[in-house]
């Protein structure tokens, strides 16, 4: 009995620096944000803010013109479009890379890994200036060469959405190709031989052998990617919403929307309420995924 207490105390003592830091930087902000979300703190009420209850939540969830619901909808579309494109393209490329006749596969793979290896914000800024910029951007140089008018790629919602998607795919595809490629290599080759003997064509082989076999292997990575896509901030913020050099696009993910409301509009109460809603959404998602995963076992 006494020994057990000693172990408990010692364990907590040794873990305390880590737990203390987590408490300060991870846990405290959540509770503080939850508290601020109940107040009217904003640029006019910096110190004399008062508790106003659930008004901010009401504004976010039921007043359509407050912008949160449209940002949420845009984020869901963004996640769907990105995930579908990512999985399909990565699957096709991984299949081609796994062609036994491809002798230079290691070489191609290394080159294709570059976007993943580069620091993310550097790549995004390079895309912004090197590709989309009206003056030095390659796209506009190409347009000029073809005799077309230059175009502000990032200035309207739809084209900003497409540009962000392209950059996000560019950044995320190498990881997905890697994961699917690794999973494909773990498939026993004899399955394919049997399938071939049975007369299955390549679509049937993909549908009945490859996809079911790699599905459980790639599932964790895919789930993580769904979350990072849903929580995407850097691509959208750096390309279109940077303070001081906004491009005029209205496309927001929920994270850039929350950021904008806090740090540009100084509407802290409202922004905090959005943060808590996002947090609840994320928890519900991960709980659903976890239940599903346990159900599959």
């Amino acid at each position: 009995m006494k020994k057990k207490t000693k172990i408990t105390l010692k364990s907590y003592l040794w873990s305390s620096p880590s737990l203390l830091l987590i408490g300060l930087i991870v846990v405290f902000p959540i509770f503080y944000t939850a508290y601020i979300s109940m107040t009217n703190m904003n640029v006019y009420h910096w110190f004399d803010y008062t508790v106003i209850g659930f008004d901010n939540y009401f504004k976010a969830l039921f007043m359509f013109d407050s912008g949160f619901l449209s940002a949420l909808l845009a984020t869901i579309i963004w996640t769907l479009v990105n995930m579908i494109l990512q999985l399909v393209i990565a699957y096709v490329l991984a299949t081609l890379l796994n062609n036994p006749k491809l002798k230079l596969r290691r070489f191609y793979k290394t080159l294709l890994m570059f976007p993943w290896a580069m620091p993310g914000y550097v790549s995004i800024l390079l895309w912004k200036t090197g590709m989309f910029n009206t003056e030095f951007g390659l796209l506009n140089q190409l347009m000029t060469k073809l005799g077309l008018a230059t175009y502000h790629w990032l200035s309207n919602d739809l084209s900003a959405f497409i540009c962000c998607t392209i950059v996000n795919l560019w950044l995320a595809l190498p990881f997905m190709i890697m994961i699917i490629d690794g999973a494909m290599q773990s498939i026993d080759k004899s399955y394919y031989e049997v399938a071939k003997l049975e007369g299955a064509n390549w679509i049937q082989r993909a549908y009945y052998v490859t996809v079911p076999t790699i599905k459980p292997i790639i599932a964790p990575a895919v789930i993580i990617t769904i979350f990072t896509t849903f929580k995407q901030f850097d691509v959208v913020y750096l390309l279109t919403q940077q303070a001081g050099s906004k491009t005029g696009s209205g496309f927001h993910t929920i994270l850039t929307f929350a950021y904008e409301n806090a740090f540009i509009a100084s509407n802290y109460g409202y922004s905090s309420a959005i943060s808590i809603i996002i947090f609840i959404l994320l928890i519900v998602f991960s709980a659903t995924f976890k239940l599903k995963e346990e159900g599959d076992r």
Partner: protein
Amino acid sequence: MTKKPKEIVGQVFLNIFFIVLCFITLVPILYALSVSFSNQNGLLSSDFSFIPKDFTFANYKEVLFGEDIMTWFGNTILLAVATVGLSLTVAVPAAYCFSRRRFPGRKAIIKCLILLNSFPAILSMFAIYRLLRPLGLINNRLGLIIVYVGTMSVFSLWNTKGYFDTIPTALEESAQIDGANTFQIVIKIVLPLARPSIIVTALMVLIYVWNEYIYATTFMTGEKTYTLAAGLNSLQATEMQGSWPVFAAASIVVSLPVLIIFFLCQKYMTSGLTAGGVKG
């Protein structure tokens, strides 16, 4: 035998496809590389090529010998070393306790950590600002280090704990019988065995610090205290200002260390990224 010509054609097409694909993928990087070696004036002419015109090292000279960037580089190294060191110092004992000891609250804490960690770090910024300002830790390197270590601490704890769990305890038990204390066991037996996970954790923290720009620009004001990421952010060339060739050269310089680390440790990367949040 009759199949052969068709196969060769297929192979050629496959290789052409991949060469084109790799080229398209690398265009943004190649363009930046070419611009970084170009003379400023050469850029305005509209014929574009991937071979730099008016070849010059002037942009790199400006990046490497301009005072600011070297200061930013120093700041980043300082922050990165301190954050990685502190992260491991804090995470390893905690991970060892959570992996080897059984005590009340252990499971609850682990579950809570995973749950709470899904709160996006960027949304914590305002609260952390309010916490650190009264303590005088805004515009202070120590403040930024605390933020970085704290943000990465759930990952560090989780990642090292997960790996400790896979190490059999038999060695430790026999060392204990030989009279080694816990501290010796951790240093001499567990850590050497856990080297891959320690490396991955350190790398992830390092890359995080290297790439983080939002906290670095919000919490540190004044160009002297910028990190590379924050500084590069301020160097950006827009339509109105800034020099695109210098920015391109700076981007290449900032990316090189990360690229080198990445390709040296590539085999650890995939596992390091997926191990974190999954084994719940």
